[in-house]
């Protein structure tokens, strides 16, 4: 806890009886999960005075992968409390029950008072938690009864409706409602049953619609048509109109029961489309025949949804919220970047906002307040006795309840940055304490829940945010880890939970090499920071990522994606309201950059620029600047995400794009300095020379900067156009004080410093050609992408450019990544293909397991397997690029010759120079 003057202190060391009464000294806690939250739990336990704790250690963290030890082992305070288990969770029900028994056995044998499961798979498992409770052990987290009340989605939704919470509007029983329109009461239904000789008995305990449903079911079994298609169409029109009344302008989705994969679904925008839509889905579902079950759903269509959630804390009696989080930036169901969504942040953004932006932010604030109110009501409703997350989808400013996650979540730290939780002594208003860690709140609630007075939240930072560092490639697909050999220390304002990977060898102080291949999921670390505003927050994240050096072998992480995206946001719109598909479109746009950037050859560009220079002197000066110019450009071109970020951050500032032309707005010498800075290559004594600007290039940049600073000092202008005009004129007394020779030297220096810098215009030109520069954010703070990045087919191709499959001769199928090979989908199934089999393009050929994810590898072309060296190799580790099958493709692809490649690169590069 934090004392009233924000000093960290364990309760038992506090100076008042009331505070001491919340002592956590009696807790001996067993942590049964792994990953960043295990490290965090230990940290919090140490800070709050938990007596003792222990951990499980699975085989995968010790004896399955070389150089993959649970890093906590190097520093845990209680080395005797490490308990060996085969795995942290079970695969399948039987193994799960065995694991549960094992954990309870460990806890009782070693006298643990509590169990903590973080956000592990077991944390929301009511069987697990019930067993813990039955064994008389405390569970740090919501109790089993809360999970049962809140966990099941249908029940939770029903409860939410009952509490007046907002859920997705719509109905899932069109058929029975249509029947009720026709047969308005009990008698009418019974009459119908009699007429068609159906077995039906009215149950007055049920609603009219439920009775109608029962009658319909009886009808289906005898293929009796009770409701015609026309009647369904009419009913659908009626219900749609009702929805439109409440949500004018929105689209409505019709979905057949049992439809899927886009089949049996239609989205309509107006009442005149309803009848046709109903007919279409019924036809697709093949339920036109009389007597078929033609039920379907009607609901509000949520296309551009955002994923928001509210953090709640409760003790079973009271429930409060500590603000929300925007988790919309996600890919493959994996969240990437999360921001706090809180009143203070929105209020601040409102200051100075005008027009539609203002209206949008006001609506967002209303929406947030409504979500917060709903979350507390729901929390009280389920008698929440720990922390949970109230998850919503949001469209525009309307929110709809999805589910409650009854556990602490990965991104909980974002809320800790936004608010403190303040507990005040009910008998003495002057006495209070703050809790700044949700894990501490969980321990407190587990131990002293009923006694804890209802707290209030106190604003801590205007904005908080979290980056998830994951093992992925540039297309955000999981990638088999690699080995970390060094990781720079966190910045002063950076909160980095790296699971302890960065904890050095206690004897030598050296970084302990860490093999990521052993990780269960692809998450490597969480990085958090706060800010005085969303923008300030983003700037800090950018600075953290800029300075972070993570080096190793075969190491691929999403940090380039994060760094690029954060900078793009800063430059474009820090208050962007991304939807859950934003990242897909953004990746396509970055892929589009890559399709051009990979064809740019800087050597060709340099040769071309040299050719156009007038004399030997200028050519010599250009050559002296070769590394100065080409090195940072080369690095930027090699990293399309970094490129996207640099472009987004400086578009409109260093240059402007006007139609098809690009104009410099700023002195390109500053542009270049900015680029070196962005790439974390500023000159810094003591840093390895290969990791920063070369020294002679540094001196050149320093001289140029000093020169132009002096020009500004003497002329009083910063304006680049004006400075150029002055230096390219015939003389200027402000510059030279009447010394003509000095002016000549200044003009020469200006020419020398500027020579060749127009090559930097490659950056905006590539962005322009790729269409990336057309992405914008509208007044409603929503992203607007050019059409081509929205088209799923084109987008797929563009994203592919970010992570091209490994090169191989066209008669081989190779492993696209390292991992565990499987020829079949499950042990009892036959291999996906055998030797001699013919396969079509896009057909799955084998499976590579990476980080517990079973990735199907699809045939890039049609062909025949002529050799299968991997028969009977299930479970073997393969490396990226390893040959899996020898094939004979149906069509032999002609490989591009060196000359063709060069010609293409010349064409692209020359095309970008002017």
């Amino acid at each position, binding site marked *: 806890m934090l004392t009233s003057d924000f000093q960290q202190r364990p309760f038992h060391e506090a100076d008042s009886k009331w505070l001491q009464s919340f002592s956590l000294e009696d807790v001996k806690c067993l942590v049964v999960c792994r990953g960043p939250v295990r490290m965090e739990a230990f940290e919090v336990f140490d800070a709050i005075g938990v007596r003792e704790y222990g951990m499980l250690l699975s085989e995968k963290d010790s*004896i399955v992968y070389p150089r993959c030890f649970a890093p906590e082992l190097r520093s845990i305070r209680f080395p005797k409390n490490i308990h060996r288990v085969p795995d942290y969770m079970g695969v399948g029900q039987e193994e799960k029950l065995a694991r549960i028994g094992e954990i309870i056995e460990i806890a009782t044998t070693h006298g643990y008072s509590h169990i903590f499961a973080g956000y592990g798979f077991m944390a929301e498992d009511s069987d697990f938690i019930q067993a813990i409770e039955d064994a008389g052990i405390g569970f740090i987290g919501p109790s089993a009864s809360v999970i049962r009340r809140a966990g099941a989605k249908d029940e939770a939704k029903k409860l939410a409706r009952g509490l007046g919470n907002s859920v997705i509007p719509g109905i899932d029983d069109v058929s029975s409602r249509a029947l009720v329109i026709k047969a308005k009461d009990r008698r009418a239904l019974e009459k119908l049953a009699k007429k068609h000789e159906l077995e039906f008995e009215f149950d007055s305990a049920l609603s009219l619609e439920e009775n109608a449903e029962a009658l319909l079911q009886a009808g289906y079994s005898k293929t009796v048509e009770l409701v015609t298609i026309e009647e369904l169409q009419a009913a659908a029109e009626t219900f749609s109109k009702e929805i439109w009344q409440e949500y004018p302008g929105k689209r409505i989705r019709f979905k057949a029961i049992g439809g899927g994969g886009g089949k049996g679904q239609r989205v309509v925008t107006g009442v005149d489309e309803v009848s046709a839509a109903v007919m279409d889905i019924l036809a697709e579902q093949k339920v036109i025949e009389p007597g078929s079950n033609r039920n379907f759903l009607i609901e509000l269509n949520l296309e551009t949804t955002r994923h928001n959630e509210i953090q709640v804390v409760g003790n079973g009696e009271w429930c409060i919220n500590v603000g929300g989080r925007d988790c919309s930036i996600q890919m493959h169901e994996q969240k990437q970047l999360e921001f706090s969504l809180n009143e203070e942040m929105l209020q601040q953004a409102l200051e100075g906002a005008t027009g539609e932006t203002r209206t949008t932010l006001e609506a967002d604030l209303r929406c947030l307040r409504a979500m917060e109110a709903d979350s507390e009501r729901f929390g009280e409703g389920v008698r929440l006795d720990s922390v949970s997350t109230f998850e919503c989808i949001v469209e525009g400013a309307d929110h709809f309840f999805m589910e409650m996650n009854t556990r602490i979540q990965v991104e909980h730290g974002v809320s800790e940055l936004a608010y403190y939780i303040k507990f005040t002594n009910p008998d003495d208003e002057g006495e209070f304490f703050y809790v700044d860690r949700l894990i501490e709140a969980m321990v407190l609630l587990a131990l002293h829940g009923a006694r804890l007075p209802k707290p209030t939240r106190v604003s801590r930072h205007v904005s908080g945010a979290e980056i998830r560092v994951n093992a992925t490639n540039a297309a955000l697909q999981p990638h088999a880890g690699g080995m970390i050999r060094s990781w720079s220390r966190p910045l002063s304002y950076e909160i980095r939970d790296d699971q302890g990977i960065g904890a050095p060898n206690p004897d*030598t102080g050296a970084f302990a090499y860490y093999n990521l291949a052993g990780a269960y999921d692809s998450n490597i670390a969480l990085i958090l920071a706060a800010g005085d505003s969303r923008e300030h927050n983003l700037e800090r994240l950018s600075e953290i990522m800029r300075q972070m050096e993570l080096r190793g072998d075969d190491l691929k992480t999403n940090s380039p994606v994060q760094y690029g995206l954060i900078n793009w946001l800063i430059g474009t719109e820090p208050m962007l309201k991304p939807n859950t598909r934003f990242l897909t479109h953004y990746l396509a746009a970055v892929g589009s950059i890559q399709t051009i950037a990979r064809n740019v050859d800087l050597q060709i560009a340099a040769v071309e620029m040299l050719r156009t220079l007038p004399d030997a*002197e200028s050519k010599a*000066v250009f050559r002296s600047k070769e590394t100065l110019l080409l090195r940072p450009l080369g690095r930027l071109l090699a990293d399309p995400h970094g490129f996207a970020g640099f472009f987004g951050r400086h578009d409109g500032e260093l240059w402007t794009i006007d139609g098809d032309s690009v104009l410099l707005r700023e002195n390109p010498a500053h542009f270049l300095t900015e680029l070196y800075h962005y790439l974390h290559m500023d000159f810094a004594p*003591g840093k*390895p020379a*290969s990791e920063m600007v070369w020294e002679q290039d540094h001196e050149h940049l320093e001289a140029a900067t000093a020169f132009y600073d*002096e020009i500004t000092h003497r002329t009083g202008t910063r304006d680049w156009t004006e400075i150029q005009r002055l230096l390219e004129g015939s003389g200027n007394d402000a510059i030279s004080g009447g010394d003509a020779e000095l002016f000549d030297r200044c003009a020469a220096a200006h020419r020398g410093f500027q020579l060749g810098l127009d090559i930097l215009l490659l950056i905006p030109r590539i962005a322009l050609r790729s269409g990336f520069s057309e992405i914008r954010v509208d007044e409603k703070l929503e992203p607007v992408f050019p059409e081509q990045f929205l088209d799923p087919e084109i987008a797929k191709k563009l994203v592919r450019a970010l992570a091209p499959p490994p090169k191989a001769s066209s008669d081989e199928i190779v492993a696209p990544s390292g991992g565990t090979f499987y020829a079949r989908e499950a042990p009892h199934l036959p291999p996906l293909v055998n030797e001699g089999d013919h396969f079509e393009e896009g057909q799955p050929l084998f499976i590579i397991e990476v980080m517990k994810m079973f990735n199907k590898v699809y045939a890039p072309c049609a062909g025949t397997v002529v050799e299968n060296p991997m028969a009977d190799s299930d479970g073997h580790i393969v490396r990226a690029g390893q040959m899996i099958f020898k094939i004979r493709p149906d069509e032999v692809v002609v490989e591009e010759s060196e000359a063709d490649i060069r010609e293409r690169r010349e064409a692209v590069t020359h095309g970008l120079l002017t």
Partner: protein
Amino acid sequence: MTTPAYSTTNPFSAPDPRPAPDADGTSSAGALYNEAQQLGQELLDKPLEGGGVARVLTQHSKGRMTVWERIKVLTAEEPNILWQNWGPGLDGAAIVTGILKIDGRDVAVYGHDFTLRAGSMDATNGDKLARLIYMAGEHGIPLIGMNDSAGAFVPAGVGGLDGYSEAFTALRKISGVVPSISLMFGYNAGGGAYLPRQGSFMIQCNDTFIGLTGPGVVKSVLGEDVTADDLGGPGVHGQSGVCDLVTKDELASLRTATRLLPYLPDNNHSNVPFAETSDPIDRHVWEEDLLFRKTFNSPAGMNAPMDITLYLQNICDHGEYFEIQPQRARNLITAFGRLGGHAVGFVANNSAVASGQIDIAAALKGTRFIRFCNLYNIPLIFIEDTTGFLPGTEQERQGIILAGRKLLDSIIDVRTPRLTMIIRNAFGGAYASYNSHFVGASMVFTMPMARIAVMGPAGKDFVYKDEMRGIEKTYRSALKDGASEAEAAAARDGALAALSTRYERDLMNPKEALSLGSVSRVVMPGESRRVLAKNLDYLMSRYEPSPMTGVQREHE
């Protein structure tokens, strides 16, 4: 004076802050003094400039650091540069020599300055290099060489070759006296490849070349079309053992060198610096037990392969070990590690690769590592789990007997404390040669599941000759008595399997070896860290580091 059309200096920049020579020239003594100062400064600056700005730019444009920049990565402390104006050009003669303080230890360093005559060698800098190398040997400090040289300086003619000869000789003379690490940068051919390989460890990064000649000569002489990387890149040399460690770039190479250094002693008359550890030596290693249990209880049972580095990481101090030649012959793992603070060399059979059988490459890799540890007073721990040397025509034709003999001899020659831990298989010749009691092991330990025997499962044919004959007889008489072929064969196979089981139970265990005193004691899984560390500590307390002396044996 006409102003140039282009300039890249700031016309406003402040004038040179150094004291200018007396303007009036009246005080001749003062002028002389100032001139001397100026000369001194120029001489000090001279080697730092290398081949000039343009050459430095060229070096950088290849993504390579200059020799001075590389030195700064090795240590933040100021280098003590020796003989800096060596050579007629007073430029240091294209090679930088000095003493560095790396993590508190003195290390001699040399580095070719590629910006000066492409770092090429001639009599002048060969002489300079030899002087540094002899000095390192004399003072007993390790040597780091940063190689980035185009080879002999052709205009120097035979003199250039003499320079190499002198350096070759010097490096050979200190071989076995002080350890050395050769870092390979740039493009090194001919003498530039041999010289660094005379050292103890060679580290090569991507985008570098080592070879007798480059692809150009290979093309003109042999007509082979090959890229520099396919001819002499790290991918090639990491697998052949020419290189001990490969890395992704220059920075990684330099950092790898400083990670290797703590496992090396200063010289052949001192121990590797002891490193106090917070990892208790009596820690029971549960994981060891788990690892074996999981392996041997798997369907493949006693034949299940196991990555032995998983064992090493569990018993070493804080799980750290440093593998040497990890790209080559991983059926035998050679690695440095620490047990209770003592640096130790591990030579471990690895059943996860090629069943851990010792082939020529593994034998040569092991020999090299064992000889190094022996010369430099580093104790050895042999982890044994092998069915033996790899038989077959291919290996015989390539001379496995020579290679296996090298391994055997290198083990016999070991004079440092050396322990053996038998984990599973220890059959026949492999058992006998692999640091057994009678080839000089200080102590031999065994796990209870060890299978110490003259032969593997095939040994039953010899041990149970009578029983085998009996089974065959029964089989034939059964056929004669009208049993079907299938029936008779089933009965025979059943009997043979029972015999195999009996052989494994009765003879493939550590009992006989223990009874003969060939093996000192049984160690239960989980206890090997404790037993090995305690014995190592004891043996090291009785061990005086000293240079190797005595008779030189015939084979290396």
